[in-house]
């Protein structure tokens, strides 16, 4: 990979990072919203570095550096990209590279290893595939909710929307907060409350019911954890991956809270929403 190619690759990579963050919100499909500014910064630095490398190369600046650095056996090549000088001794260098890794000669740093071409893959991913947020496929293939947390049953000490809301009010909760409460709140404070949840629909593979799910993400989509509630309502199951805001109440289970595999939610009212800006919570 010569220096022009390296510079252009960096410009494209930076442009991909900037495209996913500035004009679009694509990055929210992959990473936490908090990563946005860092991605913008990293993208800008990458573009800048790429441009500097290309400019230096076109001005022939690196030629001087390489010339004074080249070992005598290669010193006949004064090419700006250091590449042609490298050619003559290519077979030899390859043997050396096999022996010591490709830095064995120490003077070839103007070339990048072939693996660096792979930096174009994230660029293809952004511009061609534009990967969507994980959805019902992931919920189905991971086999449902992550399960109750192992901690001892707790009561009180919750810091969510329900704690702050007044008794009669409809509480808008994250699906994650809802399932957490449902599993470990021994005081069952959610019972009888009006609750509003937003998530995407996952039709039940076996029955004709459906789940309302939302993926919880700590850092990026690779660590996404499924939270879902089983919806109890009369209407037909909505299409997979359509987004809904549902209002209703928790179906209080009879036995131990942590024995329930999927907590149920009785829906009184449901309303389709366009995808929320951040698909994860």
């Amino acid at each position, binding site marked *: 990979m010569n220096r022009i190619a390296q510079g252009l690759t960096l410009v494209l990579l930076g442009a991909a990072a900037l495209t996913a963050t500035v004009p679009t919100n694509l990055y929210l499909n992959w990473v936490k919203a908090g990563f946005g500014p860092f991605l913008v910064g990293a993208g800008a630095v990458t573009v800048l570095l790429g441009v500097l490398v290309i400019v230096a190369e076109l001005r022939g600046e690196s030629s001087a550096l390489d010339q004074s650095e080249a070992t005598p056996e290669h010193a006949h090549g004064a090419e700006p990209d250091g590449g042609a000088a490298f050619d003559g001794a290519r077979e030899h260098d390859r043997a050396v590279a096999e022996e010591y890794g490709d830095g064995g000669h120490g003077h070839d740093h103007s070339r990048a290893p072939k693996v660096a071409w792979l930096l174009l893959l994230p660029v293809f991913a952004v511009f061609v*595939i534009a990967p969507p947020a994980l959805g019902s496929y992931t919920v189905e293939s991971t086999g449902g909710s992550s399960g109750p947390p192992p901690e001892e049953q707790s009561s009180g000490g919750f810091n969510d929307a329900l704690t702050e809301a007044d008794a009669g009010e409809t509480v808008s909760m994250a699906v994650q907060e809802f399932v957490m409460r449902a599993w470990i709140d021994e005081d069952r404070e959610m019972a009888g409350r009006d609750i509003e949840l937003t998530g995407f629909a996952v039709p039940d593979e076996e029955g004709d019911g459906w789940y309302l799910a939302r993926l919880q993400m700590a850092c990026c989509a690779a660590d996404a954890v499924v939270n879902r509630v089983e919806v109890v309502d009369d209407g037909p199951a909505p299409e997979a991956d359509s987004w809904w805001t549902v209002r209703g109440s928790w179906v209080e289970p009879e036995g131990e809270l942590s024995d329930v595999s999927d907590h149920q939610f009785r829906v009184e009212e449901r309303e389709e929403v366009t995808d929320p800006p951040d698909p994860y919570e």
Partner: protein
Amino acid sequence: MSDRTSADATPPSALGDSIAQGWSDRDELPPADWGRRTSSRRTGTVWLFALLITAMAMAHAWLTDELTDQAFLAWATIFTAIAFQALPFLVFGVALSAVLTAFVPASVYRKFIPQNAGRAVPVAGASGAVLPGCECASVPIAGSLIKRGVAPAAALTFLLAAPSINPIVMIATAVAFAGQPEMVLARFVAGLLASVVIGWIWVRFGKADWLKLPSRTHAPGASRWQIFRESMLHDIMHAGGYLVVGALAAATLNVMVPREWLLAVAEAPIISVLVLALLAILLSICSEADAFVAVSLTDFSPTAKLAFMVIGPIVDLKLIAMQAGVFGWRFVARFAPICLVVGLASTFLIGGLLL
């Protein structure tokens, strides 16, 4: 000349092929042509990228909506997520490493880091607790530390300790394991212990020629900014390419290995620890996020979760690939197994004592 230009500009079947083709062809040409061949190579490269961008624009217009396979899209999402999550850390890491190379004189390291490698190792381990950054950042930083004359064992200890026990990781662990401070303590102690012990093992048994490090002696005329630029370019190209390899492998396994397989072994005491260690290696989650994943693996024992958080920052697919890019495969083939064994021993010891 003109044939050569057009040969370079014809649509390549694969990027690597076209480049390799160009190289071998040029061996036959006489030396007098070298200067001109370079400019034709440049033209060829520019044409190649122009073609590439056109192809991407066309694919964006016609292909994007055709890609509907759910499994493929989930894979692409996870691959992109890992790659772009790591990008800021990678850029931060290579920038810091370039600063160390270009602006900090070697004498500073001699002042702060003991010359004796055996004593430098714990110092390096403790300094890992100070500098925030994940494993993607620490690989190039460790590389430049070695180049600046820091004992390799100490730099490697820093490489392991920084992602294992840095403040952000400890806070993330405390948030994920709310109400279980012993888990945070166990992670800190086990991570630091493993890093320092591996460092000492390297002091005792490590050989200098296992490490491939480009001996980049810069031309006397080069300005600091030129050195900075060259160092950043070099590190991004080496570590970045392998980061993509790691992200590809991790995304593939993330999508292909069903979680049920893991849950089936969660009950067995020792096997479950080994399984989560293996999972940490395969998933290659950033160390700042792995605590949240660990806490979600609710069927496993605390020691198994500790293994997930101790092994993940020191050995995983993404790290192995990146270390190979910076230090060479001869190094990785020895270093990764040591890390795994010592990390597991440390996990069992600390897990037995604290959890």
